[in-house]
């Protein structure tokens, strides 16, 4: 009988493939890209790259960043990952004002809507909460320890979001589940009241997103390894609609390319007016757009924006204030990857709103590099290079790795008896040193 445990990620000699991530400041002030341990930020207002500074021990991240996010008001930014650190940054000065140590690697991070707390998920499936210091920029004393508030037993949290009204925190895991929990006024005692479980995915849930406030406070959208995007009434845990992304993609790809593991949903992003859902699909060189009709409670296929053959977005982002959809492709921790090769490629889709995108429009739906805001400076800062040839080389290997990565990351591996014993011997749960 197979007998593997979740802690395998801690012990494996070869670090896991880490996709590049992109996040956009809610008011459009900046864009951040994380690839490997590097955090790259571009200030869109000033039109220049940002240099980060760190008050907390002077170290930036030393290992792959797995999650990034902006706070709802844009004042704060959080990054966390394999170095077991959660870093909180002020976005006006881009100084790191707080660094929190986790016992285990971090897979997901979120900032509460009021900016008072940061939550992060460790590889055992526990969500921890830390009180954030004042925004005034003073040094924060680090004796406020993380407290556990929610647990998905023995599972990996893939996505964690606060509802727009701040009442709930939703967490999705590798074991097909989405849990919606009431986020109490005093969360330091834990979030114990579960509102609902949204159950229906038949494979890992890779990403979740709440619809915006104006649409009424009950809808959640999720994407999964089962190649579906689902619309939920999260108050009651009802599955309202399912979009079988696989069917659409199969029409567009060659038959030999539609291997099941290639069609997992990599990321979803809602447009700021709630009318569209952009879907990034592992193994698909483009972005699929779905319309989201909350009156009829349906998701429908709108169109596909195909990109060049070698471009598969690993992460999507948009801001409240602009109609740009940012996508990035990149990765770290790939076999034979040199540190200097942390290159990414950005592609931006304009007019990311239903009324602006006509489904009959077959023209180029992406910005050319020259049309990108602050074009060269931005692309150089966030991509790491403007050299097309060099990029293509790196991205080709990302492409190859991507086609198996997500499946490997989130589907449990099975080992032989000896290999298991070997792994057990190497295991080590580090305790936090105080």
């Amino acid at each position, binding site marked *: 009988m*197979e007998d593997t445990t979740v802690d395998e990620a801690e012990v494996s000699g070869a670090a896991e493939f880490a996709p590049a991530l992109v996040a956009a400041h809610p008011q459009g002030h900046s864009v951040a890209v994380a690839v490997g341990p590097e955090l790259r930020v571009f200030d869109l207002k000033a039109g220049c790259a940002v240099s980060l500074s760190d008050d907390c021990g002077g170290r930036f991240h030393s290992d792959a960043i797995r999650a990034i996010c902006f706070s709802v008001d844009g004042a704060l930014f959080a990054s966390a990952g394999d170095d077991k650190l959660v870093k909180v940054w002020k976005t006006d000065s881009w100084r790191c004002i707080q660094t929190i140590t986790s016992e285990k690697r971090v897979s997901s991070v979120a900032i509460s809507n009021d900016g008072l707390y940061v939550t992060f998920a460790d590889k055992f499936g526990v969500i921890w909460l830390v009180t954030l210091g004042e925004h005034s920029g003073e040094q924060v004393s680090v004796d406020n320890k993380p407290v556990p508030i929610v647990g998905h037993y023995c599972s990996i949290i893939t996505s964690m979001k606060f509802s727009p009204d701040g009442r709930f925190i939703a967490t999705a895991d590798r074991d097909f589940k989405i849990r919606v929990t009431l986020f109490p006024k005093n969360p330091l005692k834990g979030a114990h009241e579960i509102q609902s479980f949204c159950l229906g995915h038949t494979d890992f849930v890779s990403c979740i997103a709440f619809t915006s406030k104006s649409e009424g406070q009950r809808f959640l959208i999720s994407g999964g390894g089962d190649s579906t995007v689902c619309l939920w009434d999260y108050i009651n845990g009802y599955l309202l609609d399912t979009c079988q992304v696989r069917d659409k993609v199969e029409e567009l790809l060659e038959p030999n390319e539609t291997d099941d593991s290639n069609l997992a949903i990599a990321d979803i992003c809602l447009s700021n007016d709630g009318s569209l859902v952009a879907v990034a699909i592992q193994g698909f060189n483009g972005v699929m757009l779905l319309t989201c009709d909350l009156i009829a409670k349906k998701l429908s296929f709108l169109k596909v924006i195909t990109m060049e053959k070698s471009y598969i977005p690993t992460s999507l982002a948009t801001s409240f204030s602009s109609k740009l959809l940012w996508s990035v492709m990149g990765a770290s921790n790939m076999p034979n990857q040199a540190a200097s090769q942390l290159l990414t490629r950005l592609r931006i889709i304009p007019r990311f709103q239903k009324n602006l995108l006509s489904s009959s429009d077959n023209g180029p739906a992406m910005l050319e590099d020259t049309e990108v805001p602050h074009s060269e400076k931005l692309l150089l800062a966030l991509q790491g290079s403007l050299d097309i040839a060099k990029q293509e080389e790196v991205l080709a290997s990302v492409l190859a790795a991507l086609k198996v990565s997500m499946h490997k990351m989130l589907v449990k591996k099975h080992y032989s008896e000896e290999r298991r014993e070997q792994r057990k011997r190497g295991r080590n749960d580090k305790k936090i040193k105080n």
Partner: protein
Amino acid sequence: MTRTNGASGGGAAGKLPRKRFYRARAHSNPLSDSHFPVPVSPDEFDLSQHYPRYFPADKGGGEEEAAAATAPPRISFADVGCGFGGLLVGLSTLFPDTLMIGMELRDKVTEYVKERILALRATNPGQYDNVSVVRTNSMKYIPNYFRKAQLTKMFFLFPDPHFKEKNHRRRVISMQLLDEYAYVMEVGGIIYTITDVEELGEWMQSCLERHPLFEAVSDEEVKADPVVKLLSTATEEGQKVARNGGQTFQAIFRRISLQEE
């Protein structure tokens, strides 16, 4: 260590299965993902397989058809880690109109309980139709089987393995798992725990006391509850402890609703 099962068909003949054909190690690793089917959601949990008398003449997913007539019966009691089924058998006749289920991780032991129930149904017509067992990992999949506020009683008898120290969070009773148990229990439902390991007993008591959705059941109520006696007498483990003159530690709590400030 485990013998192959030579006692199949025990249920059909009405003969109780022999335990020695179902021996398994006492411990099973709840952190591992064994490959047993898990319903995607409670709606997909086919009760007709478990309680045929209550869901007659259907082809799986019997609830829809029963629903056409009246509200379908739902499971009210869950025995988490039911072992060889001693408690369930005792509860079945005490609550003949209540549907109850045992959840057990070990394959062989689950088979034993299935055979035992079939045999009991055969030799006691009209009885034991309300009890069944499912092989599953209740620490991971409870929400897949039960809807919000469905259960009126949950049982955790002699949990084992009882992880030590930094593995406390892997115990079947923990602050995090109590969130899920509270979710599937209705307000007013009762959670029963018992163990012969003092430290574990203290741990479970402490978790339940600290959890905002549970409050202790008063001593008078505990004395008056006919179920309580079964905790220490109905199961193999309980009987073993009694034979050895050991002490048991109970924690019985009620699921309450959160008081908002």
